[in-house]
């Protein structure tokens, strides 16, 4: 029953929260750049506008793929907030991005194709860490279920500091921020125009935006899990992490994809080392 309420709340509240977070993000970014920035509700205006625009379809298949992308992002978030299996959640999340890549490939534009290739590289970069994080949670709490992990009394962060740092590093990829905004960027201009989203316009682009809101809420949920033993600290940690990501966006240039991949895997190594030490301690303790 609790799970059902979680799903309903997520479906309704996540886009609201995601949009507000995006608005705060833009405001904060503007302040860091010495500007006033847009109104808080700007992301909602943007998406509203996108749905008012004419539908221009470059290739018919792409709309289907984007709808599937949105659906699977929502599904993975829903599974998460229902307290479901974290492994399943992560794989649904990956599948969603495969649809995004397919959508970008369906359009005939070199920018969109290069963006799609880079998106795949990004998936390769962050996937190991996400899986390692799930393994870490299992090692600490003994369960793959979000419901168990969220109600644990064990401070996961103390056991998984390396995993958390690795996760924070790849979070800039997922939030599409510098230094790792190589496949598409939310703010800055790029050599591949808008990368994966170049060929999407109107309501299709609006769907991508909404998917991004759901995605951000889900990712911040994952951050929360590291601190779940104390909800107050958890929420503070989520806010601090997000502000730190915005800050990093504003003090770095974009790197090349090779460096993004390398950093991602270095972060993964850090997480592996963390887990190895953890398993050694547990075996030693047992």
């Amino acid at each position, binding site marked *: 029953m609790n799970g059902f309420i979680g799903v309903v709340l997520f479906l309704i509240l996540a886009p609201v929260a995601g949009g507000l977070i995006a608005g705060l993000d*833009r405001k904060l970014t*503007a302040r860091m*750049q*010495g*500007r*006033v*920035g*847009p*109104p808080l509700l*700007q992301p*909602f*205006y*943007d*998406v*509203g*506008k996108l*749905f*008012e*625009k*004419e*539908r*221009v379809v470059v290739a018919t298949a792409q709309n289907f793929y984007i709808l599937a992308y949105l659906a699977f992002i929502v599904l993975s978030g829903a599974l998460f907030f229902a307290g479901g299996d974290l492994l399943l959640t992560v794989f649904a999340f990956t599948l969603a991005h495969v649809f995004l890549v397919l959508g970008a490939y369906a359009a005939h534009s070199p920018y969109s194709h290069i963006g799609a290739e880079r998106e795949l590289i990004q998936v390769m970069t962050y996937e190991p860490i996400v899986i390692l994080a799930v393994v870490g949670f299992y090692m600490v709490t003994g369960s793959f279920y979000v419901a168990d992990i969220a109600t644990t009394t064990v401070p996961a962060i103390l056991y998984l500091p390396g995993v958390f740092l690795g996760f924070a590093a790849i979070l800039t990829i997922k939030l599409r921020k510098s230094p790792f905004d190589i496949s598409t960027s939310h703010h800055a*201009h790029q050599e591949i*125009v*808008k990368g994966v989203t*170049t*060929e*999407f*316009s*109107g309501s299709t*682009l609006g769907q991508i935006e909404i998917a991004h809101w759901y995605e951000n809420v889900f990712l911040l949920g994952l951050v929360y899990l590291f601190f779940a033993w104390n909800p107050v600290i958890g929420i503070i940690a989520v806010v601090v992490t997000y502000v730190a990501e915005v800050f990093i966006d504003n003090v770095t240039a974009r790197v090349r994809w090779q460096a993004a991949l390398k950093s991602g895997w270095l972060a993964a190594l850090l997480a592996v080392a963390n887990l190895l030490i953890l398993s050694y301690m547990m075996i030693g303790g047992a």
Partner: protein
Amino acid sequence: MAFLKRSPWILHYDASSCNGCDIEVLACLTPLYDVERFGIINTGNPKHADVLLITGGVNEQNRPVVKNLYEQMPEPKVVIAVGACAATGGIFRECYNIVGGIDKVIPVDVYVPGCAARPEQIIDGVVKALSILEERRERMTGEAQVQEEARHDAAEAGESR
């Protein structure tokens, strides 16, 4: 709901201007003028843009590019000609390679005067363009409704027969 007025995304193109107006267009985005306050973003991607800010008197080589950009933008859209050259060809109107004004190539909605046009003037031009954009949107939804009703009527007529 009129979201369009609150979120005009801009595409800027330099069609043979001297750069003066172009750097002023860019200056609008930066901290002193900061047009993001009004939800204005410089997208650089015609497929995402609502407003085409265009400078310069258009030369022969630019003519197809300008047309192409205009056609790639989804409706509703507006075109703002920034600067004297974009209005008439300006100081270069007698040059052998200048067509003379954006309106010789694509329809223009708002003309921003100046050589170079100042950022305040450009922002003013964008604000003016927004009401035109809103009108276009209303007409577009209106037309869609009319079409929908016509289809509905035709369907009903078909059933009753």
